[in-house]
Each structure stands twice: as C-alpha cells, then as structure tokens.
C-alpha cells in the first residue's frame, strides 16, 4: 500500500427502473486509495450511501478479473475507461489524480435497455449466440487430443476471437450501436476451426440476421476495436462480411447446407 489517497468527484447516472427518467447525481468521494480498482471505488461509494441511508448505485460485476464481461461502464465517455485493453474491473484508481471528476454512465443502445442505474439488459447477445454460436457434434467421451490437426495460425486466430467476453463495449462505443465486433468474434472462433466448418455458412447467416434484428449497422469507424477490453480486431468483421456474402451468393448446397 502506498497510502496515497484521492478525493474524487463522481457524476453517476441514477435511474430507478427501466421506465423511470434518469438523472446524474454528484458525489464527493474522499479517501480513495490509488491501489483500489474502479469497482472497489464504487463499493466504497455504496458503503457510504448505505451508511447514510441512501440507495446504493446498482452496477454489474462478477469475476472482477476481466473474464466474465459483466462489468460495463461508460467512464468519461469511454467504454471501460481510459486504459486500452482493460475491462472496468481491471482498471485501477492510480490512473486518476486527486480532484478528478469522473462521469459514469451505463451502456446506451436500444438493444440494451437500462434495468437500473448502471445495469443494462444484454439479452440480445444471447439471442445471437442461440442463433448459431455453437457446433453440432455428437456428445460422448472426449475425443483424443490432437485427433483433429489444426494449423497453429488458425488456432491462434480462433483464440484471438474467442477472447471476447461479451461485455458489450463494442455496441456501447459504436456511434451506430452496432454489434458487428461481438458477432464477428463469436463467428470467427468457430468458423476458423475444422469443427466449425459444417455449419459455417448457415451459422453466419443466422447470427448476422439475428444481430441485425437488434442492433445498428457497421460504418467502419473502428471505435469498437479501440474500446474492446480484449482488443479484438475489426479484421474479424471483414471476415464475417466475406462469409456472409459467400453464404448469400454462392451455392451453399455444395457446402452441404440448406439453400
């Protein structure tokens, strides 16, 4: 512990329920250690609100180690705050100075309605996964390791895509509220591997069509890539576009698929 503490001025979005009108509320928060994480700072705020008999701020969190994708805050106009490749829970208060004002808002998109304060409903992501984010394989005992040869490059790229934690920062950061980065990552981690080939094109169409039922469209700003806590590349969006066009324009029956 360095013992250094900060006094912060927080502006937090408070909204009592999905239909309630929201507003910013300001809090002066002294005694924040620079060693705290951003969520621990909010814990301190909530303890004080509780002690004073006020309703604590609702925010989502679970693993607090950057792997579950629950934490989702727009911090000073940046999804997950100022540090690149970092989820809110991994952001630390040492990046702030004494007296800083921090504005905290929930993700905003019509696909992600606010449930309360900073918590949004990300169910449309589940709909996209249900549409095709799986492979169909007979379940049984685990296959032998290395029984399916996979080139190192393919498995590396698939792993890069599989890093997506589904936090929704891409949608939050996109000026169009598009979910192309999320969907393309979820497609790529299957479409790049042998096990994903059989359903590659039907999966692509199903997931893209479901995505478009809920979200905006991509205009290649690149904000999603910059906001992504896992630094997933928009190269995957190009791959998705290519697969979608192939799926629509070429003979999918030859690939063993309907249509």
């Amino acid at each position, binding site marked *: 512990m360095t013992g250094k503490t900060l006094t912060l001025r927080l*502006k937090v*979005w408070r909204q009592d329920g999905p239909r309630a009108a*929201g507003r*910013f509320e300001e809090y002066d928060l002294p005694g924040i250690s620079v060693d705290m994480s951003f969520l621990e700072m909010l814990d301190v705020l909530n303890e004080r609100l509780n002690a004073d008999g006020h309703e604590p701020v609702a925010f989502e969190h679970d693993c607090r180690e950057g792997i579950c994708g629950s934490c989702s805050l*727009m911090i*000073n*106009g*940046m999804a997950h705050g100022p540090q690149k490749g970092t989820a809110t829970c991994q952001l630390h208060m040492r990046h702030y100075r004494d007296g800083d004002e921090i*504005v905290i*808002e929930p993700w*905003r*998109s*019509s*696909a992600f309605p606010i449930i309360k304060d900073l918590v949004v409903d990300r169910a449309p992501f589940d709909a996209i996964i249900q549409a095709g984010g799986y492979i169909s394989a007979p379940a049984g005992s685990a296959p032998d390791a290395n029984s399916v040869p996979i080139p190192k490059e393919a498995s590396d790229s698939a792993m890069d895509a599989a890093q997506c934690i589904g936090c929704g920062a891409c949608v939050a*950061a996109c*000026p*169009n*509220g*598009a979910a192309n980065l999320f969907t393309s990552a979820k497609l790529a981690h299957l479409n790049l591997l042998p096990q994903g080939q059989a359903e590659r094109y039907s999966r692509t169409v199903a997931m*893209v*069509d479901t995505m*478009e039922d*809920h*979200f*905006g*469209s*991509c*205009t*290649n*700003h*690149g*904000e999603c*890539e*910059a*906001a992504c806590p896992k630094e997933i590349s*928009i*190269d995957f*969006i*190009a*791959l*998705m*576009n*290519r*697969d*979608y*066009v192939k799926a*629509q*324009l070429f003979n999918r029956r030859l690939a063993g698929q309907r*249509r």
Partner: protein
Amino acid sequence: MATATAPAKRKRELPWPITFYRSAVGKKWVMAISGVVGLGFVVVHMIGNLKLYLSREEINLYGEALREFPKHLLPRTVFLWITRVVLVLALAVHVHAAASLTRMNARARPRNQQYQSPRDYQVANYASRTMRWTGIIVLLFIGFHLLDLTWGGGGADFERGDAYNNLVRSFDRPLVAAVYVVANLALGVHLFHGVWSMFQSLGVNNPRINKARKRFAQSVAAIIVIGNISFPIAVQAGWVDEACVGTEHGEPCEPSGLKF
C-alpha cells in the same frame, strides 16, 4: 380418427438478391460496389479534364471521343448512355442503402438512448463521422454540376459541345468556382473514409495489404481533390482563358490552354 399434422408451410423465400440486399451487411457490400463504380468515374473524369491544360481543341476532341467510343463497334453515344445508366443506378442504390442504414442506426440509438455526457471518441475521425453530410453535399453538387456543364442551365453562356469554353465561362464566376472547390473538398473527405471502408465491407482484409489500404485511400482522395480543385483555381487565377471563337474580325487572340 387418425390425425396428421401437415408439415408447416415453408415461408416462401424471396429471391436471393432481395434477401441479400435486405441485410445490412449486404447493403454495405452494395454500397462498396457502387462506390467503386463511382470512384472509377471520378478518376476518369478528373484525368479527362486535365486536357483543359492542353488546349481547347484537345479537351473538346476528348469530349467528342467519349460520344463516339468505341467508334464503329456501336452507334454513336450508345456506350455513353450505357455508362450513364450504370452510373445513375449505382448512385441510386448507394444513396438508398445509405439512407436505409442511417434509419437503422438511428433506431439502434434513438434520442432517448443517447449518451448524456460527452463521448470521447478514440479513433472515429472527422471523415467517418461526416459521411452522410459529405455525401449529401456531393449529391447536391452532382445536380448542380450536371445543370451547369451538361445541360447548360447553370447561368453561364453555354454552347453544347464546347466543353472548354463552357468550363472556363462557368469557373470565371468566383462564387461558382468556390462551390466547385468546397464540393470537391467534401468529395475528398467522403472518398478518404469510403475507399478505406470499401475494403472492410467487401471483406478484403489481409495483413499484407492492411496498412496499404489507408494509404491508398489517402492518396486517392488527395489526387482527386488536387486535380479537381485545380480547374476552378486555374481559371480564377487567370492561367486558363476563354478561347476566342470566331476571330473573323482579325482581332489578336491568345492561344487557349495553360498559358505557360
């Protein structure tokens, strides 16, 4: 009594081009292809206009050659009209797709779902965020430009077939010259994001060329802008003069084209 369940009627599928165009990814693909068509036109148009600097005769012959192309293989102006139809169709789908995607994006983040504090954009740039405005400026400009130098309704003295003098007379008016400069700057900004964006929409993505994509977009935009705005500037600066037609009275006449 036996009951049989009739198989659910499969929803009639629309023909694939419609299904494809209905999706946003499909629309972006169509925008990329129609954008390439437009880009091809803009490049050829700019290069052709450089003949302004050679002489009145050169550029007017070039115009005539466009009408005659490909000479004896097709009747006169048939190819020209095919090109025009393709260009108008490309422009129409480009604008339609843009408008419908804009509506889709407005639905995805309607007024009551906007951020209430200022956004801090990381990489979205001026060009990418003003595409629809630069697009509208270019669209309006295309209308004015056709009126001015194709149909001859732009207010300047117009003579069909004399591209050289029509152009010089039009650009002699400072306000019109300014309109051409501003519109072409908007076109350049539009092309800068559009050309790069086209690669993504078409799925042309490869580490070997990814760096070159942005550079390519920058160079294309720069070349088009510099070429196109040079015309009104040259006329305004007095480097290119109206050619005197009909010197039957024998007054001295400056040669047309670039003066040095």
